[in-house]
Each structure stands twice: as C-alpha cells, then as structure tokens.
C-alpha cells in the first residue's frame, strides 16, 4: 500500500543546506503521524535528511530515486 503524504516539499534545484532547512520548516506544518514528501536533486539530501531525521526523532519511511532521476524521500513526523 502506498503512503499518502500530507504535504509535498519540492527542493529540486536547491543545494545543501537548503533542502534540510526547508524540510525542518515543512515538518512543522504537518501533524504528528503524518508524512512529508520531499523531492530533491541535491545528492546530499538523502544522507542529510536521514541524519536530520535521526537527530530530530522523525522517521524516514523511504528514500528512492524516481525514474526521472530525482530523490523522493518520505519523512514521518513522530513528535
């Protein structure tokens, strides 16, 4: 079953640390238990958003490269 994100954040074309900063802002706009979808082209977004989520106590549900070649990261807000 696919997860339905509560919100999508498009950081494509933006570079470190902007994707992480925008993710930190966007997560506050969804409810606890909801999922934020982050689209990114910065290769650092994958490790960086995972590191950020670990630090903040959120869960990266999935991180995948789309057929179009960008990253799609799903972050579940846990607190």
């Amino acid at each position, binding site marked *: 079953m696919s997860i339905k994100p509560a919100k999508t954040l498009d950081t494509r074309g933006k570079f470190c*640390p902007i994707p992480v900063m925008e993710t930190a802002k966007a997560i506050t706009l969804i409810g606890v238990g909801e999922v934020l979808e982050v689209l990114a082209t910065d290769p650092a977004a994958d490790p960086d958003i995972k590191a950020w989520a670990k630090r903040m106590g959120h869960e990266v549900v999935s991180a995948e490269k789309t057929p179009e070649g960008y990253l799609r990261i799903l972050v579940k807000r846990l607190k």
Partner: protein
Amino acid sequence: MSEKVEKRNKLAIIAWSGTADKLYSVATLAGAAAAGGWEVEVFFTFWGLNAIRKEMLNAPPKTSADFAEHGPAVTEAMKQMNIPPWFEMLRQAKAMGKVKVYACSTTTEMFGIKDKSALADFVDDIVGAATYLERAKDAAITLFI
C-alpha cells in the same frame, strides 16, 4: 578547582575570515545545525567582522587570495546554481533556530564601528573573548573559520 562540563548539541564558530568561500562554510553549518535544533553561536572577528559591516554585505564577494583567479568562475557558478548569498543563509538560520551572532568588541573598535547599527541586522550583541569562551565551553563542535 576543575569544573566538569557536559557537552551539548551546540556549534560554536569563530568566523575570522572575510572571504565568501569561507563564510559560506559558516552559514551552511549554521543553517544545517539550526535545522537540527542545535544551538549555534557565531562570533565574528577580524575580517569576518569586516564582512558583516552593512556596506560590505552589498559589495562584490571576495575569494581567498590563494584561489583569487577562480573567484569570478565560482561567483558565476553560484549564480547559476541559485545559491543565496551566505549572509542570507545565516539570516534564514537565525529565523528558524537557536542561533546567536556576536561581534568582537576589539575589532569593532579597530574598524571604527561605533555601534551595532553599522553591522548586519542579524548581530545580537557586541561581546569579548571571555563571553565566547563561556558560551562555547559546552559546545560539542567548535570551529575557527
């Protein structure tokens, strides 16, 4: 008597350099740290302090002398990549997290700056070395850039 200090998620940076290639490191780390809920203390001194004078923020960015010949190419690449100016990133970091920005009192006087109104609007206070040491002593990460 030795005091036991518990390290915290705090990043304390002395921003000494006045060139954009180094100030980007200051702003990038401050931004990432602020996003992660870290406390951040940035202490601008010497050429770093000179770089946060209001009139310097509008001046063309400088590059380290060792790499001066690459300066224009780097500036152009950053424009193509739509990277905001380093001080805009620092301003955003402040807006989102626990970021404090200080200016060194001695270099402020040295550059003939009368008060903090001559400095970037993100400067919290003009302080001295003892303040930096006190604020940085429990920082898990300290950097001199």
